[in-house]
């Protein structure tokens, strides 16, 4: 059997198994014919438990770090054998893939132990805060959400500096392979590089092709299209199905994410060039007017949801579309988790209703764009007691080879390197089913052309996860008058806080 044929066959067998169309016994038989032992499947009670089986791990024999990299790891990592590295990270696909499936290869090759603490986002912030404030060096590597880049910029090494140490540099690491917009949007703060882009959840349009076809609606290419289509669906199918969904939980970071998409999409920005809040200008009010109309077409309760509720509403067929994190796309294609497997289509975010502002017209490095990105970077802490070992791990974790493995194992998250989008292992998963990568071309396109990035300033954590979403939450709960009144009040608060810090 030719290798590519075997691979395709294996993919389809695994997919049938995953979809529940094939029982376990037949799957194992088929898999063994295709050259996979049960051991490779991680059966039974061993160290690698049963959950390891997925579409991806069935191809495990191929899903291993390249020999070349393993060789480099064991050469360069030898002196550090026995040390332990710690990383606190949000529970994201890359971190989970590394923690559960990939770090063993690193540990075996280097003898360096890696402990990964997986936490919800706000708890990661708490951990890093304590670590930084006390300069304790509990964690060797920091997972830095783009909204914290400014806060932690002085606490981590600039990877460009680290690369200068030839002894520890990974061959072909190629820092220029990282998507340029991501480096600018996530990692850069002023002239420092706060780690390298590690993870890139980004807003893309995800919609029900079948519903759109049924109602003969044009694909949501513009914001107006989206509103019209959504209203049409809600009219036709409500209350069983609504046109679109949102993540609008009051006081939660996710509400701020949604806001920026509409704000930027109407030619607005959070800050003006003078560094003052400008979300209450005409463009900002137009965005709110649009948002109000759009919200009327969303399922009631959308203002209680974070991305979880939003994703579930689409996955369970309650909402027909969402402009939200692309990471959800593989989840929608998973027949066990959602009711819309194979029915979803991804496309780049809608065209803005007005010209986007340029970076020069905004403040604090804010980059307007409907495709809101929520990326994060990985960096070595300055307080680490083993910065060299940590740097080795970081290069490995963000190398093209590892990222390709992450993308396949971690369920189709967006890679941060150009080359990974073209990796054959990644391409092989571009079919309907759990862990699909068929939306990645759209992600790549969005990153390149439609991405929006939040501003970088030390007060941003407080603004984005408290002040803004609380004010917006008040507005939608009807506690603070008109949109103009609400945003005017918000402006006073924001400008106050920014002035103070």
């Amino acid at each position, binding site marked *: 059997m030719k290798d590519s044929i075997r691979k395709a066959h294996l993919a389809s067998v695994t997919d049938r198994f995953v979809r529940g169309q094939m029982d376990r016994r037949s799957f194992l038989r088929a898999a063994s014919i295709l050259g996979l032992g049960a051991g490779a499947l991680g059966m039974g009670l061993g160290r690698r438990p049963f959950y390891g089986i997925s579409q991806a791990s069935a191809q495990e024999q191929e899903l291993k770090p390249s020999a070349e990299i393993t060789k480099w790891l064991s050469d360069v990592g030898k002196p550090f054998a026995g040390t332990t590295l710690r990383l606190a990270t949000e529970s994201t696909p890359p971190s989970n893939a590394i923690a559960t499936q990939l770090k063993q290869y690193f540990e075996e090759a280097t003898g360096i132990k890696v402990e990964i603490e997986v936490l919800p986002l*706000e708890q990661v*912030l*708490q951990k890093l*805060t*304590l670590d*930084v*404030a006390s*300069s304790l060096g509990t964690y060797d590597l920091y997972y830095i959400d783009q909204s914290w880049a400014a*806060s932690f910029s*002085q*606490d981590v090494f600039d990877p460009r500096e680290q690369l200068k140490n030839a002894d520890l540099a990974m061959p072909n690491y190629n820092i220029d392979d990282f998507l340029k917009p991501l480096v600018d949007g996530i990692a850069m703060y002023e002239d420092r590089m706060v780690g390298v882009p590690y993870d890139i959840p980004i807003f893309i349009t995800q919609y029900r092709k079948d519903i759109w076809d049924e109602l003969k609606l044009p694909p949501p290419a513009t914001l107006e299209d989206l509103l019209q289509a959504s209203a049409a669906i809600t009219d036709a199918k409500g*209350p069983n199905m609504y046109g679109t969904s949102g993540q609008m*939980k*009051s*006081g*939660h970071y996710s509400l701020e994410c949604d806001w920026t998409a509409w704000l930027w999409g109407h030619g607005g920005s959070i800050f003006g060039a003078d560094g003052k809040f400008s979300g209450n200008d005409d463009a900002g009010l137009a965005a709110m007017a649009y948002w109000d109309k759009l919200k009327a077409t969303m*399922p*009631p*309760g959308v*203002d*209680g949801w974070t991305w979880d*509720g939003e994703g*579930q*509403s689409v996955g*369970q067929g*309650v909402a027909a579309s969402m402009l939200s994190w692309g990471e959800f796309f593989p989840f929608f294609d998973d027949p066990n988790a959602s009711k819309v497997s194979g029915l979803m289509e991804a496309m780049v975010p809608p065209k803005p209703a007005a010209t986007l502002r340029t970076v020069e017209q905004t403040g604090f490095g804010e980059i307007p764009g409907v495709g809101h990105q929520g990326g994060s970077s990985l960096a070595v802490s300055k307080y680490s007691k083993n910065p060299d070992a940590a740097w080795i791990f970081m290069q490995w974790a963000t190398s093209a080879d590892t990222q390709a493995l992450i993308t396949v194992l971690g369920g189709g998250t967006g890679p941060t390197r150009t080359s990974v989008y073209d990796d054959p292992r990644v391409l092989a998963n571009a079919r309907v089913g759990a862990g699909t990568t068929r939306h990645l071309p759209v992600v790549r396109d969005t990153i390149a052309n439609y991405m929006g990035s939040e501003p970088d300033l*030390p007060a941003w*954590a*407080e603004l984005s*996860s*408290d002040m803004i*979403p*609380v*004010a917006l*939450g*008040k507005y*939608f*709960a*009807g*506690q*603070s008058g008109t949109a103009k009144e609400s945003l005017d009040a918000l402006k006073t608060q924001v400008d106050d806080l920014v002035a103070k*810090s």
Partner: protein
Amino acid sequence: MRVAQARRFVISDHPLPWLLPLVAILLVFTVYPLIYNIWLSFHEFVPRRRALEFVGTENWVQLWNDTRFWQSLVITFTYFAIALAFELVLGMAIALLLDSDGFGFGFLRGVLTMTLVIPPAIVGMMYLLMEDPQFGVISYLLQSIGLLNPNNPILATASTALAGVLVAEIWQWTPFMVLIFLAGLRALPPEPYEAAMIDGASSFQIFRRITLPMMSKVIAIAVLVRGIDLFRVFDYVFVMTSGGPGAATYSLSLYAWQQTFSFVKWGYGATLSLVTLVIILVIANLFIRIAKVKW
């Protein structure tokens, strides 16, 4: 019996060795944090310099002018009062109901305690799921009997969000009250009841004139312990509403947590914590005074 209890020995070995472990652990673990927090409340973390710097009374002045603080104080009080009232009354009623040696009652008491062993953070998630406007079973039930407008999700509507959180709180902690009250009820001597029944008292009279007074110490302890925890409510609001919608369910503890951990305002967070402590101290002491709790 009471006289004998009031009469303590004179010949007693020194209490110090008995109290030493307690005193030691409390000193290290509570007095130090207290002093640290007082110190901290006159400082603030300056992110640029990665250092705590002296700011005088700035934090306290800020607190005084902070509408968010006053708002969360009112919300915390409301939460505290409503939850305590419900848990007390429901707890007592259920304790009376379950105070029976009849068949199956032991089993029922055991089942009831199960609510207590689930971490509050998980309970918050449970209720978040059950109160989901689209998929939640509680929302569904209320909507189908017409008590809830589908357009007003429980947790995202300002007027009902607090109630939505309180349901989780009361569900989890009423059994705690039941447990303590049952212990108290079971320890009551039977004679006064027998006497009262012969006197022809009604069940309600028996409860008011005999059970309640005899249970007063147990009730006082329950109110104190639960009241203190209620005033520090964090998990439920954190998980279920993030303090929203707007600031409708923002509790003092949530505010202090956020200032401390999310925004690295350690000084202000410490100030908030100290105020919370002082308020609890005042209320608890008033209560001890009024209820004449004797240790």
